[in-house]
């Protein structure tokens, strides 16, 4: 699992520019699925047809987003510094003084304007220094409209804990790849959708779900936890098992699906916890609301320090998500 995760994490791909990571995942899914294709918004869709007779198969859609938060280049100053626009919810405290990498491999550092106070760290106070001596040299390496990300990394910590970025939501992608491997002959039609543009408002999942019109949809994403110093009270903790989402700001999960997931977890003795997130949103809502609606839920990986360079998860929770999905597919 760790090796798989490392492979998927490496490709930089901000919202709307998911091609690089789609290539990696596509290569992983092609050998084990019946059909792999991309749609107009850049979603990567891998289909595994079910073994049940035609007409008796449900359409089950799984979704994890490929995109990560990052930046577009918007302007190059005369002195060669690069101005930017954030894509997705950037935490600028976490983003200050970090190494960044452009899609073409150019490296730089992301820094705030000298003298900027910590409470005034907004995107227009930041620039990237790629070491260019002037605008001309900078323009040879980077142009307006290019994108960059904070450098990806994965570090093994104590036990099964791992820290790095962007675990949000490459860990969800890894769960889906692993599930497809572990359930080679599902009963129902399974659509593994690696979605685009989640970080800017769950856009890709909406059009993908409209096209697929699933009966059941499950999203795989990271969720906040209540187990750090200073965290708001919340029952979810890293290492506590797969988190079955009941609600976040954007969705109230379908109660039937929640019950089915809980039953599967109990019967298979898979560690799980209940997630009630007082904020945030995931592809779950987009899928639930696509077309005339479908039954939707979400399995979350409890994650500390989301949207920083040191997002932290427990591989045990990841394994629980895979096991629970496999158990659900048998019972669906």
């Amino acid at each position, binding site marked *: 699992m760790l090796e798989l995760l490392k492979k998927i994490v490496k490709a930089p791909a901000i919202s*709307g*520019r998911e091609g690089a990571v789609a290539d990696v995942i596509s290569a992983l899914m092609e050998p084990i699925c019946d059909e792999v294709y991309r749609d107009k*918004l850049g*979603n990567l869709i891998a289909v595994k047809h079910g073994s049940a007779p035609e007409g008796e198969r449900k359409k089950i859609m799984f979704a994890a987003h490929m995109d990560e938060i990052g930046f577009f280049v*918007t*302007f190059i100053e005369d002195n060669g510094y690069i101005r930017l626009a954030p*894509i997705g919810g950037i935490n600028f405290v976490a983003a200050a003084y970090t190494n960044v990498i452009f899609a073409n491999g150019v490296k730089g550092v992301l820094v705030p304007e000298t003298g900027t106070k910590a409470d005034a760290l907004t995107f227009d106070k930041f620039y990237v220094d790629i070491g260019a001596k002037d605008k001309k040299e900078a323009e040879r390496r980077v142009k307006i409209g290019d994108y960059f990300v904070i450098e990806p990394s994965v570090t093994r910590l104590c036990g099964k804990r791992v820290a790095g970025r962007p675990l949000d939501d490459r860990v969800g992608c890894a769960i889906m790849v692993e599930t497809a491997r572990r359930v080679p002959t599902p009963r129902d039609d399974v659509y593994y959708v690696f979605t685009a*543009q989640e970080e800017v408002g769950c856009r*890709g999942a909406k059009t993908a779900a409209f*096209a697929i019109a699933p009966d059941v949809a499950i999203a795989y994403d990271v969720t906040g936890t209540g187990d750090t110093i200073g965290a708001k009270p919340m029952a979810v903790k890293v290492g506590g098992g797969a988190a079955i989402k009941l609600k976040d700001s954007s969705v109230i999960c379908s109660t039937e699906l929640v019950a089915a997931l809980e039953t599967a977890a109990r019967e298979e003795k898979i560690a799980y916890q209940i997630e009630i997130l007082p904020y945030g949103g995931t592809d779950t809502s987009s899928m639930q609301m696509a077309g005339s609606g479908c039954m939707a839920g979400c399995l979350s990986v409890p994650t500390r320090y989301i949207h920083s360079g040191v997002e932290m998860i427990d591989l045990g929770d990841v394994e629980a998500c895979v096991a629970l999905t496999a158990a659900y597919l048998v019972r669906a």
Partner: protein
Amino acid sequence: MKENQLNGIELLRALCLEFGPTGCEHNVAAMIEAQLGDICEIRRDRMDNVLAHLPGSGPRIMISAHMDEVGMMITSIDDQGYLRFTNVGGIDSRVLCGRRVQVGTAEHRIPGVIGAKAIHLQSADERTQTTPVDRLYIDIGASSREEAEKYVDIGDFATFDSDFVRFGQDDRLMRCKAIDDRLGCAVMIETLRALVARGGERPYDLWCSFSVREEIGKSGAKVAAYAIKPTYAIVLESTAIADLPDVPANARVGEVGKGGALSIADRSTIYDPAMLEFAMSCAREADIPCQLKRYISGGNDAGHIHKTGDGVRCLAISAPTRYLHSGSCVAAVADYEHIREMVLAMLKNWDKMN
């Protein structure tokens, strides 16, 4: 050429001056239909979007520009015959006070002015603060509620009432209300005419949507896109350009007169990278100026269109416009022509789009 057919800036002028606040776009729709005449199949959909269709074999392309303009709605009429109102669409309260407006409906309108307490009567605080919209009123000259009610009803609309003025060196700039987005409408009309005149087979199936209700975000373009089911959409818009001395270079978005502004992304959409590349290469080859927006802000109908159905690949080309959403939008005559030529250049080369 038909006698009443308007072209270029004259067409744009007529469209800008027409009354068409959000939710009351009928007059603009009628003018557009009249200007298009019978050059192609035209229909209105259930939301009053005007849809023009030029059939062809190949991918379906939707071009969209919105007909509506920011305006106001009358909320109540007081005993002295003054009209209280609220904004329809995002208007900075600072541009309201002292403006001439037209009040009424598609069928009939009367002039009025937006008044507020005289400076002599204002407190020290009031003098330095913006008067909020709920303390402003429209004065139509009525001396009683009864008199006002003969001409105006609650729920009636109002728009800025401003003249179309050419100004600046060589008259290169123009000023009017509603340049946002009648400029896009005018480009679509002239594009359709040019394509019909050119004739021949078209490697695409083109739908132009003159859309309603963009300014309040309850987008007519959304339902138009649902019905049209395009593969590609080009949204023609106006964008706020702050090419002003008191704005730092990196926050200026773009420059008036330097061609259509192409968006990489805004708050509602991340635009299709291949379409963006294609648009720039078409402009480059035809030697048409265009620019990339330097700032990520705002949003437009593309935000609805690209998420419609199974998704639509979107591009936005915006006319760089100063003082957007006021009675004095300022844009460059040259940009109108640049955008029109750019759209035509793209359609001409569409076989190279992938």
